[in-house]
């Protein structure tokens, strides 16, 4: 019995030691951040497994698509790009940092990520410390861009909350509003806070404020009943699509049919498995991207994405990521970045270039510009779900 334990302990220790060695071996090629094979390495980080995987996979696919397109066209100034992507499981702590470290080991020179806000907050100071240029497609909290090397493709949460309230007030969508939000989530409570203050200014009446947490996100009957009995005309849902799909279904069974309004987190709701798409009819969401928009760039992107990835329709996260890679490529072109430059030198050049008269026309906005603080300036677009598809309002 004791010997068995000893043996197990020994063998486990051996496994551990062995694995340490193999891991050390992997990293030997790329310690300094410069790449050896003449490509510029873009590191992406996002959830590829777990509840938020749809975002991470979308970002990864679209980023790969953008990189492939650029490389097919001969690269940037003749230099090819390479995408490496790591899974951070949308974890707000050590796993996000692990993914970041793994990217560093693979020679990342520019960072595209992370996808979710919580993970992003965990790595921003790491990229600051290592001086790596970071552009996040979709981490939207204000705190994400507190360092000077971090930029966003998406709107910040305060902007989304404000824009939502403005849109509802200006287009006279409704007067009595109920909110259901996730108070354990940084993204959701961020939007809620600014929506509430902007709504008060615009004369919108918030009749019910209901919250839930990450652990109680399956039964919303209490919140729905409260919203219903308060006589809400519109239900504002600054949450992610998975919970929203449940809320829509439960609203129907509670015989409560207000207007629904959400932010970019709702994007992807039509992709939820076993979700009755007719429930989402008429849901409005504020998102900078609609897959069925008629402009050439969007159509070309959607077609290429569908061809490459099994006929899947890209969501807004994918579009943000596609733009993110193209923005990085444009900046690299403008600054004449070479593959053998260190991540820190690249960062110094890019962060100066992006806020210095740089403008980009992409899928998620025309004439996007950045302030030195890192926030993007572009016009929000409202989208409504019609006949089982997103279409521009």
């Amino acid at each position, binding site marked *: 019995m004791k*010997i*068995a*334990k*000893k*043996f*197990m*302990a020994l063998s*486990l*220790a051996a*496994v*551990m030691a062995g*694995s*340490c060695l*193999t*891991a*050390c071996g*992997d*990293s*030997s090629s790329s*310690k300094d951040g410069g790449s050896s094979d003449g490509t510029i390495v873009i590191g992406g980080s996002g959830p*590829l*497994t777990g509840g938020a995987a749809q975002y991470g996979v979308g970002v990864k696919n679209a980023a790969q698509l953008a990189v492939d397109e650029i490389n097919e066209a001969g690269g940037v100034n003749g230099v090819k790009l390479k995408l490496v992507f*790591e*899974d951070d499981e949308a*974890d*707000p*702590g*050590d796993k996000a*940092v*692990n993914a*970041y*470290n*793994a990217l*560093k*080991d693979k020679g990342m020179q520019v960072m595209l990520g992370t996808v979710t806000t*919580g993970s992003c*907050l*965990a790595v*921003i*100071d*790491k990229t600051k410390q290592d001086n790596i240029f970071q552009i996040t497609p979709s981490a939207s*909290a204000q*705190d994400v861009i*507190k360092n000077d090397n971090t930029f966003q493709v998406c709107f910040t949460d305060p902007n989304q909350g404000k824009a939502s309230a403005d849109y509802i007030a200006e287009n006279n969508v409704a007067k009595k509003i109920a909110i259901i939000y996730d*108070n*354990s*989530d*940084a993204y*959701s*409570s*961020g939007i*809620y*806070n600014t929506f*509430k*203050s902007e709504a008060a200014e615009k004369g919108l009446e918030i009749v019910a404020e209901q919250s839930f*947490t*990450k*652990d109680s996100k399956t039964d919303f009957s209490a919140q729905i009943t409260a919203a219903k009995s308060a006589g809400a005309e519109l239900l504002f849902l600054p949450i992610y699509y998975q919970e929203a799909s449940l809320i829509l279904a439960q609203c129907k069974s509670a015989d409560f049919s207000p207007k629904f309004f959400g932010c970019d987190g709702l994007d992807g709701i039509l992709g939820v498995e076993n979700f009755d798409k007719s429930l989402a009819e008429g849901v409005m969401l504020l998102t900078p991207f609609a897959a069925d928009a008629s402009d050439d760039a969007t159509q070309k992107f959607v077609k290429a994405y569908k061809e490459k990835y099994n006929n899947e329709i890209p969501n807004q996260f994918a579009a943000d990521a596609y733009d993110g890679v193209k923005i990085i490529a444009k900046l690299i072109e403008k600054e004449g970045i070479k593959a053998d430059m260190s991540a820190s030198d690249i960062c110094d050049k890019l962060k100066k270039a992006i806020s210095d008269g740089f403008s980009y026309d992409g899928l998620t906005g025309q004439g996007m510009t950045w302030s030195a603080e890192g926030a993007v300036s572009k016009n929000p677009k409202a989208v409504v779900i019609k006949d089982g598809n997103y279409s521009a309002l």
Partner: protein
Amino acid sequence: MKKKLNPQTRKSFITYGLLLIVFIAVEILLKTGSISSMLQGLLVPICVYSILAVSLNLTVGILGELSLGQAGFMCVGAYASAIFSNLVKDSITQPVLRFTLAIFIGGIVAAIFGILIGIPVLRLRGDYLAIVTLAFGEIIKNVFAALYIGYDSAGLHISLKSQGDLGLKPDGKMIINGALGIGGTPNDSTFEIAFVILFISVIIIYNFIHSRTGRAVMSIRDNRIAAESVGLNITKYKLITFALTAFLAGVAGVLYSHNFYSLQASKFDYNLSILVLVFVVLGGIGNIRGSIIAAAVLTLLPELLRSINNYRMLFYAVILIVMMICTSNETIRTFFIRNFQKLKGLIIKNKSGSETVKEAE
């Protein structure tokens, strides 16, 4: 004539020795720069998880009670110390002093919570501790996720509603920002400090187990009625053990919060408590050395499997199941024992062989 060490002492010294060897090996790798950034980033988390596992082993293995709230105590320790460090980071600039204070604050606050929970629950028989600690972990996490604390010239502001509710003056600063948690905690945790704390924890636990109190605790685990009949104060001994577990979990939380720039309550969920319990069960209930090894292996494993991309969690689960079966299945174990004894026999033979050669020379 050499004095023979008693087997318990020998066992604990083997653990100390192994820990030191690993530490020296890692230090050499660090100094020569032949360690990847990922592994370097994992060093402190491994120490943190090891401390969590050994301290939980105290409650699960030595006391024989099930606790599912290890993440809750860790969360309390992490937040208490992060608030402290953020408040004093401008006034106490000596990192070692500040961090030492933070460690004690985190540990003591967690221990206080442990005692508060323990007083009513540990008087009961049955699985009540599991139920209550489970609830405690969830409550703590949700309270911190909804907590807003800021300070300005008028003092400290606390709200459970929203940031705007605090009414901070323009010169105010947020300390806890609800679900966004605490940012800007000074990064005082280093591998060396984390290792020293792990080492001290292991020393404390071994000495605790082998002390009079430890033997009393184990007698309660083995037969409560017999222990009571010889006059042991059951609740007192249970409370001491549980408070020590909570204290060490709080210390682990301090290390964790000072290793990352941002701290969010959503990290300390039910899954983390279960993960720590898995370390304990896999390492062997009551086996301190096993806990450390299991914590290290299971923390490293998913990261080292990154090369197989999307399948890594699948492989992680499979490996976990195989390990569980291998350590608990009698047949497989006897197979290993037999081979191990053969191996041992071979080594001993070789050794004595070489000794005879030496003697001949």
